[in-house]
């Protein structure tokens, strides 16, 4: 970010009055930052890319804005003061925007435009469409990679006249980083190890443990599943079951394996088009199939072919391009330089997938393939794949030494793929029949044959042999195609289609991940930043277009975007870099001398209410109920009766919510069954999206109904009761119990006042349940988890009241 040019701006910033258009000053107008947003928001409606009238003045390109319009120019770069635009925006008699226009200029905006025109009215490209460059902050030319984030942040702090906040205390930081990376507080042993480790490496070691935990992938996957709108049902009309959870499990696995992000994207967009695609690569294409679908009786297939494609194209825009494309479905974009034709060229990449437009209400909405049905099965699959390679290599070493191939065998061996070579190894009459590898191969193939029996189906992408024809649809109407058929193509404002790349989804992926693509890596690191620091650098993560917000730290965003790519699209390493920054480690306490409620300076650490899934997982984990099982069909924990039935079509196969039993009640929330027309109420209550459309940033509301959910929902009470049991059985004294409770939920001991408050509550409740032990008994009967009969019911119930309350308290439900 450019340092502010005057104290005025800085004080605006510090006063929290900063907004995207306010950051300017008379002698320093930056077109992309200051002027373009004004033109876009106030002028482009008439004078923009979608101007209907051929004679209408256009202000969206330099060429058109400065053209000779019969003796005058709107922007006259040679004689700026004669610019017609200058006079019109200052005119009282004949003003622009017209007096009756919906959007008028503010004084500040008018002044900005005047200054810009007087300075020559030069145009520049919108920042997000210019490829990022990696420049170290001028102030810190010798900063190491590890110091860069803080150097950029500190530049702005200095301008605002403040310094970094204090570092959070060790236990707070431990909880924070653990929640950020794994979505759970640290295990007590790990916490103690870290707190007792006085070495310089303590924090790094702690972070490494978290990054290598399987919980990491589960937590990080959630963000991606929101973005791609993952659901376990089709979404429209009957909203029937859809079999696609192997995709979800693949995402978790890929993140845990730290698959480079360019491949992560490529597999999902076009895994099926890679040479000899692996099972994983094909399962990953579930991404392409994630659009909600219908099989409503009267629906017209051509209409839904178009609608499905709109959805996929626009989701690509939100998730990977940070741009809204919906406008261009019907007309050229009002603000961003994207034509309607380009929209349909982009859509053409998706128009040739093989599935029917209608889902047939089928779980196996074709094309589908068989895939492992949980994470354990995936692990075994990977082991078998590795074993295959090992056996083939081992066999290869035998060739020419112990094993001689005849001419025909040699020919076969040379051209065969993995499966072909394995069958040669397995052949009882083959050349390897007497070798160990033969026996080992038989064992492996038998194991595989056994394993695939438990495989389940998952929706995948497949290309039609003959592509469907794509044309522009007039006003987005499926039955009004116009013009010539279009070749698949990309948005030219974001760079050319890579030379030599195939004109299919694989080429699309190559374009997105190309070195000079201006947007994708920015969009992704912006969201990674948001996971770590609670808020993104671009406050409109769904919109990097002209109407979006300017980044608070543009140079930092660019540095991170380029570093991410240069560093092999390494997600874990990017997160590692971020959580090691001083910026991240600051205390999240609001600072008296920094009035920056939105934390645009990042002069304090992150603070926010945790997501729905995390709230549930923390409770399950603290009570010891959390099941370690990873992956598999979505699970159905407690839910008030009748919620699905009240909405569902009588013909729907998701009209009855049949609650699961046993271990399935305690799976991580990532695995909770996602019915798109009626997600679990504890999810929607805490701002989880419906997954019918893409969500790249959840809201964080604070409502009375959330209080009811936290204190009354069956699973919350069950967690409380089992957590109370844990406290009663694992700690000796009441004081120790309260400390254990806080160590679990807040990674620290209870304060004196917390201790007093909780023991006071326990005392009141003991008295109360002594008077009415029946109430104690019914309270302890809530939830399926077995009750420890050895405990005194009065004491157990009293502690349950306390644990339920503390589980709902801010030290437990906030990140800080």
């Amino acid at each position: 970010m450019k340092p502010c040019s005057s104290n005025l701006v800085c004080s605006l910033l510090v006063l929290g009055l900063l907004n995207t258009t306010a950051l300017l000053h008379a002698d320093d107008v930056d077109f992309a930052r200051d002027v373009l947003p004004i033109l876009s928001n106030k002028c482009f409606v008439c004078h923009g890319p979608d101007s209907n009238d051929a004679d209408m003045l256009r202000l969206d390109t330099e060429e058109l804005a400065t053209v000779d319009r019969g003796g005058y120019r709107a922007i006259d770069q040679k004689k700026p003061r004669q610019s017609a635009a200058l006079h019109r925006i200052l005119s009282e008699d004949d003003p622009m925007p017209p007096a009756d226009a919906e959007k008028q200029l503010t004084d500040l905006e008018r002044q900005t435009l005047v200054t810009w025109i007087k300075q020559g009215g030069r145009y520049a490209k919108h920042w997000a469409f210019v490829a990022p460059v990696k420049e170290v902050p001028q102030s810190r030319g010798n900063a190491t990679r590890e110091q860069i984030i803080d150097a950029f942040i500190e530049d702005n702090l200095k301008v605002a006249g403040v310094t970094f906040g204090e570092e959070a205390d060790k236990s707070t930081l431990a909880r924070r980083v653990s929640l950020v990376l794994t979505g759970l507080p640290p295990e007590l042993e790990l916490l103690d190890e870290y707190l007792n480790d006085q070495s310089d490496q303590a924090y790094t070691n702690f972070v490494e443990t978290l990054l290598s935990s399987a919980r990491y992938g589960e937590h990080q996957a959630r963000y991606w599943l929101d973005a791609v709108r993952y659901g376990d049902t089709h979404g429209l009309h009957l909203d029937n079951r859809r079999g696609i959870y192997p995709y979800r499990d693949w995402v978790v696995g890929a993140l845990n394996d730290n698959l480079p992000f360019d491949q992560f994207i490529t597999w999902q967009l076009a895994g099926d088009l890679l040479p000899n695609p692996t099972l994983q690569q094909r399962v990953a294409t579930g991404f392409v199939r994630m659009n909600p679908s219908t099989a409503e009786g009267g629906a017209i297939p051509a209409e839904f072919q178009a609608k499905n494609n709109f959805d996929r194209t626009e989701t690509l825009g939100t998730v990977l391009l940070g741009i809204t494309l919906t406008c261009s479905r019907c007309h050229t974009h009002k603000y961003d330089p994207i034509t309607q034709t380009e929209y349909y060229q982009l859509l053409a990449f998706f128009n040739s997938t093989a599935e029917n437009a209608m889902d047939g209400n089928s779980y196996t909405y074709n094309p589908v393939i068989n895939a492992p049905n949980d994470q354990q099965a995936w692990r075994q699959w990977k082991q078998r794949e590795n074993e295959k390679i090992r056996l083939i290599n081992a066999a290869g070493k035998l060739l020419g030494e112990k094993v001689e191939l005849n001419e025909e065998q040699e020919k076969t061996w040379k051209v065969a793929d993995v499966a072909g070579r394995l069958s040669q190894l397995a052949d009882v009459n083959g050349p390897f029949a007497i070798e160990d590898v033969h026996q080992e191969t038989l064992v492996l193939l038998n194991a595989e044959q056994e394993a695939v029996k438990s495989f389940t189906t998952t929706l995948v992408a497949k290309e039609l042999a003959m592509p469907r024809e794509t044309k522009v649809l007039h006003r987005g109407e499926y039955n009004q195609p116009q013009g010539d058929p279009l070749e698949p193509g990309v948005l030219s404002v974001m760079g050319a289609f890579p030379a030599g790349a195939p004109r299919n989804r694989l080429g699309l992926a190559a374009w997105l991940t190309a070195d000079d693509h201006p947007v994708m890596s920015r969009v992704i690191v912006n969201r990674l930043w948001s996971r770590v620091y609670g808020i993104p650098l671009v406050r409109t993560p769904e919109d990097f277009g002209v109407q979006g917000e300017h980044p608070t730290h543009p140079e930092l965003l660019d540095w991170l975007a380029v570093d991410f790519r240069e560093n092999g699209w390494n997600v874990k390493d990017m997160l590692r870099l971020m959580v090691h920054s001083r910026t991240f480690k600051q205390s999240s306490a609001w600072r008296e001398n920094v009035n920056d409620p939105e934390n645009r300076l990042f002069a304090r650490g992150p603070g926010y209410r945790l997501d729905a899934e995390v709230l549930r997982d923390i409770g399950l984990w603290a009570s010891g109920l959390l099941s370690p099982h990873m992956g598999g069909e979505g699970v159905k924990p407690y839910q008030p009766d009748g919620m699905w039935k009240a909405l569902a079509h009588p013909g729907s196969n998701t009209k009855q919510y049949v609650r699961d039993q046993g271990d399935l009640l305690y799976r991580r929330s990532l695995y909770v069954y996602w019915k798109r027309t009626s997600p679990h109420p504890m999810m929607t209550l805490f701002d989880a999206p419906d997954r019918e459309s893409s969500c790249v940033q959840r809201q964080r509301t604070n409502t009375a109904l959330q209080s009811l959910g936290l204190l009354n929902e069956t699973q919350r009470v069950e967690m409380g009761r089992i957590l109370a049991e844990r406290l009663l059985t694992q700690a000796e004294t009441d004081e120790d119990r309260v400390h254990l409770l806080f160590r679990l939920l807040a990674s620290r001991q209870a304060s004196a006042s917390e201790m007093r408050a909780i023991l006071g509550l326990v005392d009141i409740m003991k008295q109360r349940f002594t008077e009415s032990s029946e109430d104690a008994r019914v309270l302890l009967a809530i939830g399926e988890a077995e009750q420890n009969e050895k405990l005194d019911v009065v004491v157990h119930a009293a502690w349950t009241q306390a644990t339920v309350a503390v589980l709902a308290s801010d030290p437990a439900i906030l990140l800080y």
Partner: protein
Amino acid sequence: MINPNPARENELMVTRRHLFGKTALGLGTAAMAGLIGAELKAEPNGAGGLDGLPHHQPKAKSVIYLFMSGGPSHIDLWDYKPKLNDLFGEQLPDEIRDGQRVTGMTANQKSGFPLAPSRYKYTKQDNDAEGLWTSELLPYTAGVAKELCVVYSTFTEAINHDPAITYIQTGAQTPGRPSLGAWLSYGLGTANENLPHYVVMHARTKYPEQSLFNRLWGPGFLSSDHQGILMRSQGDPVLFLSNPSGVSRQDRRAQLDVLAAINQQQAEQFGDPEVLSRIKQHEMAYRMQASVPELVDFSDETAATLEMYGDDVNTPGTFAASCLTARRLAQRGVRNIQIFHRGWDAHGNLAGEHSSQAKDIDQATAALIKDLKQQGMLDETLVVWGGEFGRTPYCQGGLTRENYGRDHHPRCFTTWMAGGGVKPGITYGRTDDYGYNIADEDGNPLRPQPNKDKWTPGTMHIHDLNATILHLMGIDHTKLTYRYQGRDFRLTDVHGHILTDILA
């Protein structure tokens, strides 16, 4: 269970307020202002709404929207088409259909498009204009003809349920946009913080055909506290309202006090005003636990009122009970109430289905209007009745004089409004003799297109309906916007005309 002790509660409430007032001072004025401001700010228009709203003096304080899901047959309920009687079984003329796309269900029907006159008798009721024809299916509603503004010329483009109902409720045919109720909540906030802003009820039906979706009352990209809250007839009226078994109201009080103490410490340590606001929400939840059961307890209603709604009113979950609950909600300042009644999708056996459906709603609908009037609330309560589309005049499946089915029909259908600033006792718009097209005074088809610049008088596109509802609630539909993905979205997209002709 221990009975709550009101005196003790009040005392605790005062103590807590005192405590917060005192300690909050230590937090800096910004945080303090955040907490106190919400309590002390004069709020004639409710809390949590947008600055500058309402845009103009509202006519209606609340809207009660009776949503007939599935597509009620305008031809059998409202739109009297005597000429069809002579055309029984004849094909719908091509020039009437005029290339209208039809659903996949009847497009290739062997019988073609045979006309099905309504089997129901119509009688004419007095209203404040030329009178209102009403069907024998709705005898009670006929009795409030003088209060109704019946619009025959509602239309939409969507021809299937999911897109059509999503369209009329959110302004777009595909998921992702905020619902009408969410927009109202976003714009106007609430006038009663002890009850949800926006309440949705699902009334019982014998024919629960067609699905409903959370998105129909969802927040879309608006903040999720604007989503409709289901008021349920099964279990808690509001999800998670009741304390767990074995937990008394006093227990909860004690829990909340400890929770407040812990949160208070957190607030002092971190100074985040959000923490203080959460303490307030916990208290509001506690008050809601008292106000909601009171809301759904009809024991303070007079026998006459209950009788007016009919026997069903005593059965939670019926349309009648939902209507009375709606009136009680409106009375308590809830602005935004919607009752969904499914089962109007009569592709076959219309006689059986619609008669049952009409019986579900008729008496209670009339009672709601009368009740609101008696309570002096009708002037400021807008009642809307309608579905996502109408039904075809031609038959789907087997056709007799007595029974038939009808397919979806988007090109015209009947919606009515009452109270809340709408002219009572009038009808608006008309359809041709077939009930197929919106027509002009001479019966010629009008074929309006939704167009932001040109509105066809005598017609009401669903965007026009929504624009008009917002207008009556004091909102300029072109100005209630939310910027998402760089675009200022509105409920009516770039469309919508206020039907000034029907405003009182």
